[in-house]
């Protein structure tokens, strides 16, 4: 869906749902998911329908993911860091995470 322009940026590795995903310094979590072609990052809480980042500027709240154990983080506002763990939100958040 998206490709990177041939611009050099330091590589960063995060895990998404346990799988290693390579991305770049300067990516936000949402951008990293988009670049990696990951189709959806959460499911809507009422119907369970898959959802993906929409606005990329922090107003739509579609990009909610769990980052390093804390849920309901807006992926488009979180810069990636080496070793970061990201989990997609399936339905409701588990209490205590």
């Amino acid at each position, binding site marked *: *869906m*998206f*490709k*990177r*322009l041939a*611009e*050099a*940026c330091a590589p960063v590795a995060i895990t998404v749902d346990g799988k290693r995903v390579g991305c*770049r310094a*300067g*990516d*936000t979590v949402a*951008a990293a998911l*988009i*670049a990696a072609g990951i*189709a*959806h990052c959460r499911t*809507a809480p*009422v*119907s369970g*329908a*898959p*959802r*993906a*980042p*929409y*606005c*990329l*500027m*922090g*107003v*739509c*709240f*579609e990009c*909610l993911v769990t980052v390093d154990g*804390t849920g*309901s983080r807006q992926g*488009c*506002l979180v*810069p990636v860091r080496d070793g970061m763990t990201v989990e997609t939100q399936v339905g409701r958040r588990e209490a205590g995470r």
Partner: protein
Amino acid sequence: MTNASDLASSYDLVVIGGGPAGLAAAALAARAGLSTVLFDENPGVGGQIYRAITFSPVKDRTILGEDYWAGADLAAEAAASGALIVTGATVWSLDPARLVGVSIAGQARLIRAGRVIIATGALERPVPVPGWTLPGVMSAGGAQTVLKAQGLVPSGRTVMAGGGPLLWLLAAQILRAGGKLDAILDTTPRSNWLRALAHLPDFLLSPYFSKGVKLLREVRAKVRVIRVDRLEAVGDDRLREVVFGTGDGERRLAADLLLLHQGVVPNVNLAIAAGIAHAWNERQLCFEPVLDGDFNSSVPGIAVAGDGAGIAGGTAAAERGRIAAIAAVRALRPAASVPDVQIMRRKLRREEMGRAFLDWLNRPAGPFRQPTGDTIVCRCEEVTARQVRDTADMGCEGPNQMKAFLRCGMGPCQGRLCGLTVTELIAAQRGTTPAEVGYYRLRPPVKPITLAELASLPIAEAERKAVER
């Protein structure tokens, strides 16, 4: 990197938002001697129009265009001015007493402000077409953000739909970057020309005219443009094709990515939550704050500058920021020397020429603002157009009662993506106007904060004493 503990407990001026208005305001105020802090929730300043201006990986300047790179000066000016510029800072509360609640890296603080300038800008108008919540459907602004900030460009079967200057600019940028764009589905009705014509003379004299004509020519040379009156995103768990209606009937295009855009509107959440009065703008079909000539709002000491004051573009935003900053300096340090505000006012007037024409020409069509049937209106709570219309028919007169019945507007986005649609649907269903119907009542926190963040507020003296007792 500024931490929450580095913040003072009060500043003369707090600027919320690091786009052109915020940067220009902070720079001017700091140089005039006000203790100034600017908060922006993104990793870098620039807002939307100058997104990632300090670190964009897109080095070839012809891709994004010189209008974008002009933002670098603003960022540099602010950085050198003595203002404290804090990125990664989310302002979640502002009250009429000018107490600002802000979080940085999971730590919250309450900061007192002598004056506040809200410069939180605009967001894209929702485009509630059937299937717009499918993965593979994004806003055009979203695609532009990942281009500017991460150098990502569409590479699959890509369709853009909607209207407005940003759509055409992004199309040009994608093509210059070597990205793929299969078609542009133009949803603006031909009849818009009739109302726009009266404002054509001003437009011809404005800076937008020649830029606009060049851009359109550049894009139309490479992408087919189809005027449509109906649009649907189709797919099971993700977008597979775009179905649209033209005068000749229905057509389908296979697509992996659909980029939607039909203009931008003021991002009103923080201003409304702060108690600032807003009014309906019938030309631009949105709510905007009621302001005086210095951009002061109905709440003393709080101004709104930039596109948040009403859509006028990035250059106008900077001038508005400066005018608001001059007013703040005059209020707090009357003896300080400030630039001549008339210079800014003249530049602002020049920028505002030609907007009327663009606004009328690009005015989104009714069916794309007032959906029907199962089309989702409130994305967060999955409330459909039919539900909103039926509830309005049952006697629900306004969006706040609608909130209580249907939960629309009660999700995390706080109505940012459904508010205008709900207001317009209630007005349409009840035969009244959006001005009459009003908008959601909004409260802080305007961005969700974790219990951990709120718990991290320094313990107030009163509580400490209570525990000691």
